């Protein structure tokens, strides 16, 4: 009996190890490649590790390509997206969760519909509309677009949380002479902070990773975000794999940190968004 369960345990842990390797391996391979001296890069059979790591390719990634600029662009766009989605998200989620008014279901329908339209159908009209008002190649234009498509998720997360806050807490604040806005700022927002954090993480990851809109709305080389900039690294004929590897490793550092530190929140956010929504 014990022997049988021991074998089971061994199989279970082997499965888990295999899964972890499968998940991490491409990133590991990239990381190792980015550290290899050039003569080891294309050696056959491939080396799974290197004893003589070099930072040369990282220096190249920052010198031959404006990687730092792409970093800055991605950060600015993600921050604009975050601010807009959180403010507008609260403005929808609070009334939906707490106030009675006509047309609530229509508002919810609109929120759901926003996540239904395929991005590739929307990108051309949005592109031509932004061109008409001169918002192509602008951080605001891209941030606003990212915000629109991240908003539904934020509304779901926040309205679910606002509904859970006991009505009495808010009533007490109102009787004490607070107005609605003060009650919202002083009672609801502090209680909503964890959900806001989860929503922020997901919005940040979405915006940081988004490709289609970032690619089409920012055609100027100096305005590219990280994924677009790295995708455009390759020259006409050659593929500078080592530099690309180094650039990718640098570009995913914030994501790796976010996932390792906030794994719980991310999982919760995704499951709440999908299961309750």
């Amino acid at each position, binding site marked *: 009996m014990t022997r049988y369960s021991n074998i089971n345990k061994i199989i279970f842990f082997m499965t*888990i190890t295999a899964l*972890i390797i499968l998940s991490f391996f491409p990133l590991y391979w990239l990381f190792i490649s980015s550290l290899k001296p050039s003569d080891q890069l294309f050696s056959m059979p491939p080396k799974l590790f290197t004893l003589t790591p070099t930072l040369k390719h990282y220096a190249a990634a920052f010198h031959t390509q404006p990687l730092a600029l792409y970093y800055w662009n991605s950060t600015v766009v993600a921050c604009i997206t975050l601010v807009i989605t959180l403010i507008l998200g609260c403005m*929808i989620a609070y009334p939906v969760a707490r106030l009675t008014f006509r047309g609530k279901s229509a508002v919810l329908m609109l929120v759901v519909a926003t996540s239904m339209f395929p991005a590739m*159908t929307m*990108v051309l*009209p949005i592109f031509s509309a932004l061109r008409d008002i001169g918002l192509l190649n602008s951080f605001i234009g891209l941030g606003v677009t990212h915000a629109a498509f991240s908003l539904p998720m934020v509304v779901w997360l926040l309205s679910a949380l606002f509904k859970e806050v006991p009505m009495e807490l808010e009533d007490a604040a109102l009787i004490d002479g607070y107005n609605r806005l003060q009650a919202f700022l002083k009672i609801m927002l502090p209680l909503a902070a964890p959900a806001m954090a989860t929503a922020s993480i997901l919005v940040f990851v979405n915006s940081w990773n988004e*490709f289609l809109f970032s690619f089409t709305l920012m055609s100027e080389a100096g305005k590219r975000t990280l994924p677009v900039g790295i995708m455009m690294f390759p020259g006409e004929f050659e593929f500078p794999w080592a530099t690309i590897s180094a650039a990718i490793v640098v570009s995913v550092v914030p994501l790796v940190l*976010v996932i390792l530190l906030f794994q719980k929140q991310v999982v919760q956010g995704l499951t709440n968004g*999908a299961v309750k929504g």
Partner: protein
Amino acid sequence: MPSPSITIQQRKTVSRRHRRLNDKTLAFLLITPPVLFLLLFTLYPILRVFWMSLHQISVSQPWLGTPFVGLDNYAEAMKDTRFWHSTGFTLAFSLVTVVFEIGFGLFLAIIANKTFPFRSFVRAAILFPWALPTVTNALTWRWMYNSDYGLFNGLLMQWGWIAKPINWLGSTDLAFIAVCIVAIWKTSSFMAIILLGGLQSIGHDIYEAAHIDGASRTQAFFLITLPLLKNVFLVALVLRTMHSLQAFDLMFGLTQGGPGNSTESLPMYIHTKAFIDLEWGYGSALGVLLFVIIFAISMLYLKFLYEPE
């Protein structure tokens, strides 16, 4: 002398009525700006893309103007073999990837739902493929697939499993499989997280009851777990299908649609028409068709799979 309780009662009704009046105005004031914002990014573009699809708009030939052509663009699409090919590829790709993603996703979710040391680390590890940008994932795999100095050929040859390098991304069938593998690798984790939420919402008592009634673990899995997960499955299925039908980044980074146009998805073709050939009218018509396809498939799912509780 009025009793104090009455005064409080009166004050309460007054304040409540006052508040309710305020509620409506407040709701209106708060809701209006974000609703206008959302309409600007949903209703307006969808109307505009439909309007554009009824015109001939060749941005590279401005002297042609933008004449109204009715449904000509749609008629052209029906005769366009590249449209049918990319649509067929998109449907086949979605079918294969979604089926495998559900299988692997369920497997991952069941494992992540068990209690064992370092569980949170394992969960984070499962999240990785999903959390990194699709294009950079695609580039990473493109390198590993590379026929001359890629990892896969290198290892397979070192182990003596193959005699000469396989051109993974160079032949039609292999490229299709290669694209699907990356998609499944990347999104099984997303599927797993959603299903994990469903698994966690099933209480332990029901399994204990089944155990007492003499059900085996396999029976419990098929008779309790799967039926209770049905709605979560539906959500995951609809979300994943909608996303796969929109796949663009992956092919763009991995194969650029090649070899030939064999791994060109419909969104990729739309992108080529709209942003490289600058045929905005025709590109818009294709965009509307993509929307119709996705909408129709979602409706089919809901019609056949959704049962209100």
